[in-house]
Structures are given as structure tokens and as C-alpha cells.
């Protein structure tokens, strides 16, 4: 309990706490959307396309080591809505879609247009999802090089 001051309302503008992103309204929205659309191939396709476009345009640095996994999540979503790959636990899929929903949302905890910091919260959400789906993604990538 070394907090010097009680958490002010503006805490949402602070970046140091990755958990802030997970407590944000944007995250709750992303999760709720994921629950609704997890089995809707058309929605997943739209999400994949939007997130893919965005991934090509955003700075990679905030994502650090998660970046190749972000790409893997995108490919997994595509393989999933195409019905090519279904070996995904529902919960893992949910986290991946949640993270992507959050990623494409420009008005999340730290709006994406904020210089330098705009994607720090997105990166925090990605690494949260990654921590829960690493095995799933590793399996998927193993499938990618074995299939076809």
C-alpha cells in the first residue's frame, strides 16, 4: 500500500498499469462483442480484414515479442472462419477475438491516435490474450507448416 494518492478518475490516462486496459470499458465492449460474434463467420471475416489492414499500418514496437503472435492470431481467425482449422478451444478463440476487437477499436483506453502511447494499451491486451492462448497458437503454427 505505497500508493501516495487515491486513484483519481484520470487514472485511465496513465499507461504504466497494463491492468487498466483490462478494466476499461473498451475491453468490456470487446469481450461482449467477441461473445456475440465468436461463431459468426461473416463477422469474423470482417474483423480479420479490418485488423489485418490495421496491423499493416500501426507501429510494431509497443507489441514487442507479441507481434509475431498477433499475426498468428489473425491467421488463426482466418483459418477458423474459413473452416480450415477448428482445433481451437472456445475460450482461447474468445480471448483472441476479444484482443482483436480491442485492437481495431480506435477509441479504446488510450485512443490510437495518441502519439507513442496509442497502442500501449492494445499491446497490454494482446499480451493478456497471448498468455492464455500461447499453446493454442503454437499448435496452430505447427499445423500451418504441416498442412497443405
Amino acid at each position, binding site marked *: 500500500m505505497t500508493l501516495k494518492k487515491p486513484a483519481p478518475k484520470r487514472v485511465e490516462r496513465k499507461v504504466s498499469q497494463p491492468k487498466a486496459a483490462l478494466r476499461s470499458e473498451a475491453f468490456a465492449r470487446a469481450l461482449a462483442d467477441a461473445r456475440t460474434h465468436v461463431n459468426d463467420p461473416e463477422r469474423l471475416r470482417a474483423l480479420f480484414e479490418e485488423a*489485418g489492414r490495421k496491423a499493416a499500418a500501426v507501429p510494431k514496437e509497443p507489441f514487442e515479442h507479441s507481434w509475431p503472435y498477433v499475426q*498468428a492470431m489473425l491467421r488463426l481467425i482466418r483459418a477458423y472462419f474459413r473452416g480450415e482449422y477448428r482445433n481451437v478451444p472456445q475460450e482461447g478463440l474468445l480471448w483472441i477475438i476479444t484482443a482483436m476487437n480491442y485492437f481495431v477499436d480506435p477509441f479504446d483506453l488510450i485512443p490510437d491516435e495518441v502519439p507513442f502511447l496509442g497502442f500501449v494499451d492494445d499491446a497490454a491486451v494482446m499480451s493478456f490474450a497471448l498468455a492464455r492462448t500461447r499453446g493454442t497458437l*503454437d499448435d496452430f503454427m505447427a499445423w500451418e507448416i504441416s498442412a497443405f
Partner: protein
Amino acid sequence: MKGKRKALAKDPRRNRVFAAVLDRAKWFAKNPDALRELFHEAVRKTKSVPKAPFKDMWTYLQAMLRLTRAYYRGEYRNVRFANLVLIIGAIIYVLDPWDLIPDWIPGLGFVDDATVLAFAVQKTRETLDDFAAWETRAP
């Protein structure tokens, strides 16, 4: 001595085994059919190689394999030759298809697999990220 070991860790290309591997890699890079065989053997080996020592680098090794496949198929060629050689070299060194690399030769001084992979990733990260971006935009 410490400085020397540090230099080795920095650039594994100074290591004789890895240098020899890179020579082989050059040949593979020019022979799509051989590269296809190499790819399939390497993929087979991924099942028996423990991933843990590589941590997040493993993802990049997977990307190297997919890039190699896309390359020999002619689907993707947006990679500089030197980087392709390094990528193929890392695959050969780490996954050792056909068990060509002798297990232990006195005095050769092997570089750790993870060090080689980390080095190759450091040099080719941009190429691999570009490739992954292409993958999600390709049909």
C-alpha cells in the same frame, strides 16, 4: 577469453560449424527442389525439438519455415538473398534435418542453438515481419 566468447556469442557466423551451415544454405537457397526437401525434413524435426529454450524466438522459427515454403513455391520472393541464406542457415542449424551436423566434435565449440536463432532473428526480423504481414493480406 571472456571478450572472445562474447564476440562469438555476438556473431555466430564466426563459428566454423555455423559458417559451414551457411555455405550449405546458399546452395539450398538456389535450388527450390532441394529447399522443398529441406523444408519437409525440418518440419518433421520440429516435433522432436524442445521449444522451451527458444522462448518467443520459436514463433520466428515457424515464420522462417513458412517463408521458406512460400519461397520455394515461388509465392513470395520479397527477401534479400543474404537474409534468405541466414534464414535457411538457422533452420539447418537449429532443426538439423537429416542429422547432418555431428553431435560432438572435440574442439569445435558449438554455438548454442538459441544463440544462433536469436542472431538470425535479429538480422531478419524486418523480413519476417514483412512476410507475416503479406501472409494476412494474401488471398
